[in-house]
């Protein structure tokens, strides 16, 4: 019963007044940005990264984690009430919004809140048991294995977040190249700096994230010129007992699916929701109702969403390799705070690891209160017009960038990445894999060089190691399957709708998508 003593130890750390406060701040900010369009968790975490310099390590990480999983809660609220999907709540728009149309908004919100709570709780149990175990496995990894694992992550993220392997891989590789800017650590050569002094230390993560996700996103919203009408309907929150009973089985199924998919490379909330929704459609007792506003259609995906958001911390904290873009950003946060995530982290900083795990459950309780009884208050946030919101977001982008190095010139770099992000967006390229590539780039190069050194310059080193050979085999299979299906699709001619649905997972609202794809 190590886990229980460890968790108790974790709660001791998480239940101090200051950590409770940071957890609450993280959850409130997370819910807010989950609700509002224009700032996803990626942009917000990078905005707050420089502000956490003066906060103690555990508090800072608890707060940043709270923003991430808090945003998943907030998402579903705007999806259910107004059919505004962002970050990762496309699925909540289907049944959730249908329920609103039927006048059952309160029930949908209650279902989403409770299911998220269940999903989060299951995921924390998985996290507490699995992370230390997986950490043992990570000790077997050599440089070639790490290299292969990162490549597998790139391929999976490309497939999952963009739906197109070519586009996604292009973004990953572009990210890796951008990560090369600056001084080469081994030889001291200055690379790709264009002779500019601010680039000698490389581009800061904050600039890339705020440019590609903050500024580009603002322009996307401005181009769309949609005026949202705030939700004014009635909300009756408490469900009847038979309704409540229908939530539980779906939520449990969703939690399991979400926990599993959250661990896999490239996994995370988005794919977990789709999977949970599909499974509910197959096995639920009320499957005939799903799609037209049923409780199951909301409960399963909300639980999966929240569960995956938490279990995606497992690969980061036990192996040291983030599996999606937000986790990559969390890794930078760990490193900025002087902690190297990886197999040694749990042993070296048990207070931090178990404190973070325990804080996730406390955050769960905060979020349940914030999102169910207080949901009316959050809906009033939508009354703020976008013309007030976006200059403020721009200002926060400036302050966030500036305070990394106290250098105003960095704002120019952020602006340049804003332009890049906007161009990429107009080319239907998703910047999320770019972020992952950017943060993993230096690690990828280091492990590649080391593996090649050990293999005396021969590429055989990647196939003779059992772990890396298996991982590379998995990559080959994924690419072959993708290639084969592309050939089949071209033969049959024309577009398949799956093409479009795959690229829809990030924050494009359906209406916006129709606009961009139609010109």
């Amino acid at each position, binding site marked *: 019963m190590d886990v229980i003593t460890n968790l108790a130890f974790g709660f001791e750390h998480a239940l101090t007044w200051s950590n409770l406060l940071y957890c609450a701040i993280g959850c409130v900010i997370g819910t807010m940005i989950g609700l509002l369009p224009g700032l996803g968790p990626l942009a917000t975490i990078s905005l707050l990264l420089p*502000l956490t310099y*003066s906060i103690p390590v555990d508090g800072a990480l608890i707060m940043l984690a709270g923003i991430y999983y808090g945003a998943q809660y907030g998402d579903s609220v705007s999806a259910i009430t107004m059919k505004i999907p962002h970050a990762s709540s496309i699925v909540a728009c289907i049944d959730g919004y249908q329920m609103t149309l039927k006048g059952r908004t309160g029930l949908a919100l209650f279902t989403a809140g409770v299911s998220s709570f269940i999903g989060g709780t299951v995921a924390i149990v998985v996290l507490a048991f699995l992370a230390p175990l997986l950490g043992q496995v990570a000790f077997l990894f050599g440089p070639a294995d790490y290299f292969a694992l990162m490549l597998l992550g790139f391929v999976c993220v490309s497939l999952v977040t963009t739906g197109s392997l*070519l*586009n996604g891989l*292009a973004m990953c*590789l*572009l990210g*890796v*190249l951008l990560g*090369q800017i600056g001084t080469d650590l*081994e*030889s001291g*050569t200055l*690379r*790709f700096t264009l002779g500019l002094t601010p680039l000698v230390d490389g581009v800061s993560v904050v600039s890339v994230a705020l440019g590609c996700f903050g*500024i580009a996103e*603002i*322009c996307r919203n*401005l*181009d769309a010129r949609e*005026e949202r009408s705030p939700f004014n309907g009635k909300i009756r929150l408490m469900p009847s007992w038979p309704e409540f009973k229908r939530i539980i089985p779906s939520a449990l199924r969703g939690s399991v699916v979400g926990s599993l998919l959250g661990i896999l490379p490239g996994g995370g909330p988005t794919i977990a929701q789709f999977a949970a929704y599909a499974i509910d459609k197959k096995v639920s007792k009320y499957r005939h109702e799903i799609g037209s506003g049923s409780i199951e259609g909301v409960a399963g995906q909300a639980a999966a969403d929240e569960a995956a958001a938490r279990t995606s911390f497992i690969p980061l904290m036990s192996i040291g390799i983030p599996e999606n873009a937000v986790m990559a950003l969390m890794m930078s946060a760990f490193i900025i705070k002087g902690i190297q995530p990886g197999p040694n982290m749990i042993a070296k900083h048990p207070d931090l690891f178990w404190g973070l795990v325990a804080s996730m459950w406390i955050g769960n309780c905060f979020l349940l209160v914030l999102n169910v009884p207080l949901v009316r208050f959050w809906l009033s946030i939508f009354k703020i017009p*976008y*013309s*007030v919101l*976006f*200059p*403020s977001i*721009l*200002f926060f*982008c*400036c*302050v966030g960038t*500036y*305070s990394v190095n*106290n250098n*105003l*010139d960095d*704002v*120019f770099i952020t*602006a340049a990445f*804003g*332009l890049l992000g*906007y*161009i990429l967006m*107009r*080319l*239907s*390229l998703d910047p999320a894999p770019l972020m992952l590539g950017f943060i993993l780039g230096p690690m990828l*190069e280091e492990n*590649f*060089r080391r593996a*090649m*050194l050990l293999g005396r*310059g021969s*590429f055989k080193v990647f196939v003779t190691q059992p772990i890396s050979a298996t991982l590379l085999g998995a990559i080959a299979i994924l690419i072959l399957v993708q290639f084969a299906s592309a050939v089949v699709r*071209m033969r049959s001619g024309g*577009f398949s709708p799956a093409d479009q649905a795959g690229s829809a997972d990030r924050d494009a609202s359906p209406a916006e998508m129709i606009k*961009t*794809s139609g*010109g």
Partner: protein
Amino acid sequence: MANQNAVRGAVISGIALCFGLTALRYPIGSFAHAGAGLFPLLVSTLLLLIGLVTLVKSRFEPAKPFSFAWRNIGIILLGLFVFVVAAKVASIVLGIVLLVMVSSLAATSYSWKRVLAVSVALIAVALAFQKLLGLNLQVI
């Protein structure tokens, strides 16, 4: 109007060429002892390959129009530029006011009252960051 798929292939190939050709100027070394240029060269070669495949593929796929609206992104970038220059030459306060003034041009409507109110609120926030969080902002 240009085909979005073709433009995407061209942009990716272009970026790959920029990085690849620059990487050639750095010491390449051997595979066993990689120099500074080897890894970027490998990565940009792969990226170039992807770009070319995208270009070729676009010939066989139905064309998608490529739309690019310069107005909003231009206004936003101008706003950021003005903020930095004003903050360097004069003060952060002026920078904030100009940032809000310029970027509000991208909104659907323009009102002086709103610009003023947002500016004042943001200056207050900046002041709070400086005094409470210890950020090096020098608002006053």
